[in-house]
């Protein structure tokens, strides 16, 4: 790379828009002869003209729009920062509930065989009770207590969780 010693001086003239008016005749003569300086003059002139033309074509939006967007982004960042511990608490509560529920079921299953017997008889019992309901139109009170109430409770629980999650997202 050949760096011309006049480059700094020439660059100053170009940067201040003083080329070639404020340049000495020696510098002008040098630029005619020096390839590097001639390149600098040619390129700088082309880019400065292009800059002026491009800037004139710019149509920037109002600054208020950008301020509003920045404010919104900062606000969202703060909300996210604050809600992170709450989300962690939700996850912990859900995991704790699942563990306790699972522990309870395992404990009850190990304690006696009543659950297993009940679960084994449940499909057959449900079909029988459903047929009875279709023919008579009444529900056996024991069947409703053992099957209907847990089903309704589960549906209610799932519905409540779904509604909570939907509103929480909003």
């Amino acid at each position: 790379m050949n760096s011309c010693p006049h480059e700094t001086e020439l660059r100053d003239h170009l940067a201040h828009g003083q080329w070639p008016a404020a340049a000495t005749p020696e510098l002008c003569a040098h630029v005619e002869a020096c390839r590097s300086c001639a390149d600098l003059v040619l390129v700088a002139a082309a880019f400065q003209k292009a800059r002026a033309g491009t800037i004139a074509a710019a149509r920037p939006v109002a600054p208020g729009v950008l301020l509003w967007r920045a404010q919104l982004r900062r606000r969202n960042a703060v909300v996210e920062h604050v809600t992170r511990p709450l989300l962690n608490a939700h996850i912990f509560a859900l995991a704790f509930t699942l563990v306790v529920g699972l522990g309870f079921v395992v404990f009850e299953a190990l304690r006696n065989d009543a659950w297993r017997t009940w679960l084994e008889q449940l499909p057959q019992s449900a079909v029988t009770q459903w047929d009875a309901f279709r023919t008579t139109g009444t529900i056996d009170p024991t069947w409703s207590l053992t099957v209907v109430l847990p089903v309704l409770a589960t549906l209610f629980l799932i519905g409540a969780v779904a509604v909570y999650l939907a509103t929480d997202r909003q």
Partner: protein
Amino acid sequence: MSWEFALPGALAGGALDAAVDRRGDAPMDSEAFAAFYERSARPLWAYVVRVSSDPALAEDLMQESYVRFLCAPKAPSLAVDGESAARLYLFRIATNLLRDYWRRPRAASIEEVPEEFFAVSDSAGQSDSQIMLGPALRQMKPRERQLLWLAHAEGYSHREIAEVTGLASASIRLLLFRARRKIAALLRAQKEPAGKELPS
């Protein structure tokens, strides 16, 4: 029901805005920003549009640059660091956004992006200077366009260009010299046929 209503008075309404303000992320107030924006938006747009050759992309990236500038906790303050530092920071954000944009869809590196991808036709509002510079600029690599624009259109020093582009200050001189020689040859080649057409 939102959690904000479950915590009465904690972060609802103006309390949230106060929390945003307390963080002190905003580098300047709205009036100072409007004045700064008035002076810097057009040069920034010109830089992005000449480097990317895509006015729509330039508009998006320019807006995103300002939003990031306003949200950045470590952005230079006009009052403390001065406008030139703020402007350099803004150009640096725009340069990073351009690099991210180029890397994302098609190529792993800015240098590997094929030239055809950047050869978008300059359509509306072309001046004579743009028509002259446009074809030559389109034959340059994106990195060369950035360096040339920052050096010769914005008048930044090698140190400032290094700050904007993230390149080593020592390599800027060589890269810029090569890029200048290349585009000067292209501009001369462009001028010569036109000169020959003139009647003697």
